[in-house]
């Protein structure tokens, strides 16, 4: 499809671009209170259009189309992720509206005699740049989920990376925040360099950047040689460095805890779900489309043995184990959740070990449930820390069961779901992942599944530490406490699907299964 015709399938992205430009313009023109209201309104409208158009396309029976001569794909898979990204960003927008105190504080900082190194600076002075950057990130993630060309994959990945670097350093004069941004940018540069090197070799052997054409060539070479060519293997492993960095899989996870701890909490919450989900989307498409991992060519009656299940299984086991074991000793709840998000990337990688339809569906379903529960948990950490003068350690959760029953109950829902116990969404997600492994059978899949189950048990220890602090330990303070109403509303908005998906998941799972049709 040519460029002009393609535009009408690109309404979600165009809405986001419009929103970004309007926010920047509004930020320059407006004054006083109208400024923030306008910015948040514009962000909400463009996200609603983006998600709404995606949802409408998902509900109608639209055929997959190739946009811009095959650079992008508009199919159910990309639409599903558009909806997820619009929802995630919407929650983060709600969640990063500065409180009145912060707004007053930043007004004071604008004054000339303000102390220059106030650690309390939530964001830099203008909310405009924060919300505009947030929408640019969403745009990049949308493009990631629909890229069907190595060049587009690289560009969209870099949009997300470069903007994430800036967002991690938004607390401009904060020592931790600038260190987080630094670590992010240094590791990110290397990861994208390695990924590009892999791409250049894949381009060399397949002579094309289009995933579909790559697949044809790889299949032809694999059939001729009776195995996956060594160059494709090396190229893919190098590209996994880039993808693994985005989803924070071991051994490319080193940046995760530091960046998550140092970055402002709304940014952390966003980084832990948005780019990670986008990373999985682009990785699924790459495996499915370019490597044809789901259906391997058959030589002399038997399908060709591919190294992908072994690589994915090893990555998954390493990621889960590293994440869970490191999370055990953490006192800072934000840092603990950072390690837990590494572990969850490991669970999702399990699905790559069996790259069947069921495997992919279980990954996508897990990504969706993970968005709800992880975002919710970070939201509550931010809310509680805000009430305790920025204290993110487990101490600020002590006695929360009595002081703020609703917050504690909602947090418990998220924690149980993250552990993967029934009746929460996390249980259903893990159930599908493990059952995909077990149904596929084979010693390797069983071994990987067992490691996954053992890891879930380990994770119970550190999640339950927070629950114990909330309900069983006494704090020095006993007076009731309250997080901001906005936080309460947003966290309940996330807790409801976490609970509902845990008992009534059938329709959603079927919906995900039907959304897997990709342009090929």
């Amino acid at each position, binding site marked *: 499809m040519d460029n002009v015709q393609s535009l009408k399938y690109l309404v979600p992205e165009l809405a986001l671009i419009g929103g970004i430009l309007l926010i920047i313009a509004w930020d320059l023109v407006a004054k006083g209170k109208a400024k923030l209201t306008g910015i948040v309104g514009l962000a909400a409208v463009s996200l609603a259009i983006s998600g709404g158009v995606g949802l409408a396309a998902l509900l109608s029976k639209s055929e997959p189309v190739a946009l811009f001569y095959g650079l992008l794909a508009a199919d159910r898979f990309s639409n599903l992720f558009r909806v997820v990204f619009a929802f995630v960003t919407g929650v983060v927008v709600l969640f990063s509206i500065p409180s009145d105190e912060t707004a007053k504080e930043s007004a004071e900082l604008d004054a000339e005699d303000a102390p220059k190194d106030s650690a309390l600076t939530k964001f830099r002075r203008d909310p405009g740049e924060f919300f505009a950057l947030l929408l640019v990130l969403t745009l990049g993630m949308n493009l990631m989920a629909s890229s069907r060309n190595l060049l587009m994959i690289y560009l969209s990945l870099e949009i997300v990376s470069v903007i994430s670097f800036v967002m991690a350093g938004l607390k401009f004069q904060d020592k*931790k925040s*600038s*260190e987080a941004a*630094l670590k992010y940018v240094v590791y990110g540069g290397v990861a994208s360099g390695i990924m590009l090197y892999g791409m*250049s070799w894949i381009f060399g052997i397949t002579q*094309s950047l289009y995933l579909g054409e790559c697949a044809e060539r790889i299949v032809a070479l694999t059939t001729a040689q009776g195995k996956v060519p060594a160059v494709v293997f090396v190229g893919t492993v190098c590209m996994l460095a880039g993808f693994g960095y985005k989803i924070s899989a071991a051994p490319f996870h080193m940046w995760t805890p530091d960046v998550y701890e140092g970055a402002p909490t709304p940014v952390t919450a966003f980084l832990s779900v948005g780019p990670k989900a986008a990373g999985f989307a682009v990785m699924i498409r790459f495996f499915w489309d370019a490597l044809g991992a789901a259906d391997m060519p058959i030589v002399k009656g038997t399908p060709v043995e591919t190294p992908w299940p072994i690589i994915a299984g090893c990555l998954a086991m390493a990621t889960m184990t590293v994440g869970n074991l490191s999370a055990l000793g*953490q006192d800072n709840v934000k840092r603990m959740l950072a390690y837990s998000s590494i572990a969850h990337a490991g669970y999702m990688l399990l699905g790559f070990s069996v790259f069947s339809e069921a495997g992919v569906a279980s990954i996508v379903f897990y990504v969706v449930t993970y968005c709800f529960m992880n975002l919710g948990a970070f939201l509550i950490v931010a809310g509680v820390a805000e009430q305790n003068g920025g204290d993110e350690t487990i101490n600020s959760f002590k006695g929360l069961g009595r002081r703020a029953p609703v917050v504690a109950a909602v947090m418990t829902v998220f924690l149980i779901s993250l552990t993967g116990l029934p009746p929460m969404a996390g249980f259903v997600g893990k159930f599908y992942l493990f059952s995909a492994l077990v149904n596929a059978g084979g010693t390797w899949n069983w071994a990987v599944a067992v490691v996954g189950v053992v890891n879930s048990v380990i994770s119970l220890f550190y999640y339950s530490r927070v629950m114990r602090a909330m309900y069983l330990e006494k704090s020095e303070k006993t007076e009731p406490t309250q997080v901001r109403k906005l936080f309460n509303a947003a966290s309940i908005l996330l807790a409801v699907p976490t609970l509902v998906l845990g008992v009534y998941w059938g329709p959603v799972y079927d919906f995900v299964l039907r959304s897997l049709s990709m342009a090929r």
Partner: protein
Amino acid sequence: MSTVPVEYFLIVAAVLFVVGAVGFLLRRNLLVLLMSIELMLNSVNLTLVAYNRLHAANHAGQNLAFFVIAVAAAEAAVGLAIVLAFFRVRKTIHSDEANLLKN
């Protein structure tokens, strides 16, 4: 007129890539780290352009190389800005001293 075989370019590119990677692992100066990353990206460009010669009808490799140059510039701009911000609050550009966030 004889031309240089493609393999030569690929080997030079691989050597450049390894030099960049080793520099990244061994050096501790943040500016040198950023330079190592640039070296890795340049080796990618060399590989792409060399491979493009094998199938000259389609210029995909050269296109990608141009995009890599442009994006690398953007990334370097953000990277240097972040190093500068780090230097302002910490008065060092030694990566070992970026150790506030640790277990």
